[in-house]
């Protein structure tokens, strides 16, 4: 439910380092709370994002919420398939439900994100 190799933000985004870049999505916890995701608004490649500032919007049948960047940097990749199939955010949040890839300004911002254990404590779950 909450992979060990990811870091987590207090706004329920996950971040994964891949060759010095950061792939970003939202956690299973966030996806479950939102219920069925119906629309995702993402920035264009080349846009800059700032740590803990909104970079996009996720809309479910229940609510519309901002997406917060876990790190600052430049957007280098955007998951355009989410336009057609936003529901994969619910079914595969850590895989095909990824949202953007960021070229980070400072990898230390990534290090400061929560570990799996810290995040589980934050959301009051035991990870099972």
């Amino acid at each position, binding site marked *: 439910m909450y992979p060990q190799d990811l870091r987590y933000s207090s706004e329920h985004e996950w971040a994964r380092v891949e060759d010095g870049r950061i792939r970003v999505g939202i956690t299973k916890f966030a996806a479950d709370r939102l219920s069925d995701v119906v629309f995702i608004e993402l920035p264009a490649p080349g846009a800059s994002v700032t740590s803990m500032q909104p970079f996009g919007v996720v809309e479910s049948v*229940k609510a*519309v919420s901002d997406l917060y960047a876990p790190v600052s940097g430049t957007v280098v990749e955007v998951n355009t398939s989410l336009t057609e199939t936003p529901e994969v955010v619910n079914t595969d949040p850590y895989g095909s439900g990824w949202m953007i890839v960021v070229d980070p300004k400072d990898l230390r911002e990534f290090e400061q994100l929560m570990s799996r254990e810290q995040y589980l404590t934050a959301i009051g779950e035991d990870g099972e």
Partner: protein
Amino acid sequence: MTARRKPALSEAPETTRVAPASAGRQHKYIPVTDAERAEMLAVIGVDSVDALFADIPSAVRLDRPLNLPPALSDPELMAHLKRLAERNVDCDRATCFLGAGAYDHYVPSVVWHLAGRGEFLTAYTPYQAELMQGELQAGYEYQSMLCELTGMDVANASMYDGASATAEAAVMARDVTKRDEVIVSTAVHPEYREVLRTYTAPLGLDIVEVPHRGGSTAVEGVADILSDRTAAVIIQHPNFFGGLERADALAALAHERGALLLCAVAEPLSLGILKPPGAWGADIVAGEGQPLGNNLNFGGPYLGMLATRQEFVRRMPGRLVGATVDTDGRRGFVLTLQTREQHIRREKATSNVCTNEALLALAAAVYMAVLGKQGFRTVAELNLRKAAYAKEAITALPGYRLAFEGPTFNEFVVKTPRAPEEINRRLAEHGILGGAPLGRWYPELADCWLLCVTEQRTRPEIDRLVSLLGDL
């Protein structure tokens, strides 16, 4: 529940008698009695009604009775109010050549016969929306017809009026483009621009006005000030002076710089003969729906129209009715995209607007349905022809000439040999409501008079206006 003893009238302290004249009997229009007043004061532990106002400084309190005439009997009162009402000039009695954002069109009696039915008339904007399938279906039909009229993909269930719809559309353009400036032509209705400024000032959205040149928006003027900050270029089409804009060129120009083209429509009947804004590149159409089956209503309530392209639907303010099917596959209607509304998204909502002008939108829908495509076009052509006839006759008079060149719909601006305000005063003596003097909004156009000729005006009425102007 414990029964509370009601104090007898005689026990009521003298000071509680706010209206001594009615002491001892219940007032006809004020249901509370002295006894009830005394009881309420006793419960909250206050001696008198006056004591409730103790915190208000005596300097700002009235220390004498209101200067009111003695009460009238019901028949006297009705007669008095009727006399007052008769001092209003309305378009049933006066011959109206006034437009400028509110239009005197014929409203077929079936429009309000249907819209005035109790089921519709008494229904407020739906809170348990899906229980009101009839109301929602009416909204859906209205939206669908508005889409056809404007050439847009999606229209909402209505806004408050043309001016606020235009301002909401400007905010929408800001959200879509993430830019912080809008360019607005001075050929857009001056009151729309005023509402636009009221809306946008606290949002940090800058308004830059581009002056009209000869009664229409100068394309080069817009090109000069367009920048990467421009969220939208706002024009009105036909514009406030009744003329047409080079709308397609302006849209192309805006799009080149990544801005949207926002088209305000104050007179939707014009769309019976003009190309729909969607066909020449408008991204958002905002406007006034009063001319569609609604009376002049002393300036309000009016009907705000808002339509846009599918890709911007999630940034659209207000309520949106959608068609769907229920669990048994039957067609039904719902309010859709409500997650964007203020009551769910709070400070991040697309807009504060959580309601609509459902009844007026319904009247507009009935009106459009009654006229049909051909009828709508016929009414538009009548406006065009009658206005053209009046334009030619008036400008043939000595001292009267057209202020601006170019094609017009049902309004046009005339330069007059004497102050338009004075002309209006003289015409009023003959039961004619003259055009709008433009000096009020455009000091440099103090000798200009904006006239409107709708399908309501007959040839004898127009001839009479021309002959009176000739005799002035």
